[in-house]
């Protein structure tokens, strides 16, 4: 049942944004002015293609986010099962060991200055 309600909610959200776009394209005036069609580069004529080379740090941030996010999200079942767990001591020590491994990775990332955005 929740799936049906979520599907209805999703469809209504999509139609809402589509309707808003539709109204504005109907009401807005149409003018094929040449100047408006160009790339906006604060008045200067654009130089080179838009997708030029970017710094590797953006990519490294996304990768490290993925790996640390996997580790933190799989703490969630831990949190849910932890409160009523019969042998909580094993789970607690297991958690400390898990965090040790996570901290080793984190310290390596910080020391390797991979994410150090120079001034």
């Amino acid at each position, binding site marked *: 049942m929740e799936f049906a309600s979520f599907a209805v909610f999703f469809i209504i959200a999509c139609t809402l944004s589509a309707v808003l776009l539709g109204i504005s394209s109907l009401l807005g005036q149409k003018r094929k002015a040449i100047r408006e069609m160009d790339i906006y580069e604060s008045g200067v004529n654009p130089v080179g293609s838009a997708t030029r080379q970017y710094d*590797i740090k953006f*990519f490294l941030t996304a*990768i490290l986010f*993925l*790996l640390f996010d*996997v580790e933190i999200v*799989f703490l969630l*079942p831990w949190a849910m099962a932890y409160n009523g767990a019969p042998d909580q001591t094993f789970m607690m020590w297991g958690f400390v060991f898990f965090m040790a491994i996570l901290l080793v990775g984190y310290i390596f990332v910080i020391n390797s200055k991979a994410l150090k955005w120079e001034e």
Partner: protein
Amino acid sequence: MSIYYYLSIFLFCLGLLGTILKKDLISMLLCLELMMGGVALLFILFSKSTGFLDAQLMVVFTLIVSACEVAVGLSLIIALYRKKQTIYTDDIKIITE
């Protein structure tokens, strides 16, 4: 419920086909990710039908492995691109530089 079995093997085979046919490395990795999705779906279906619910934990491990595989794969692709300025499999034939 049983249509999902056919869906999961279809996803797996489609991913396999894509990995073979695709020309550049990133699309191959994309199709590999598609195969991972198909396999994970199959795990859940078997855990549902046999009642052995621990198989759903196996999906947790496949997710971890696929996350690591994508991360390392993409950094290799980036390193390759910085060296050879191309990621098309036809241009990357020479092993030694």
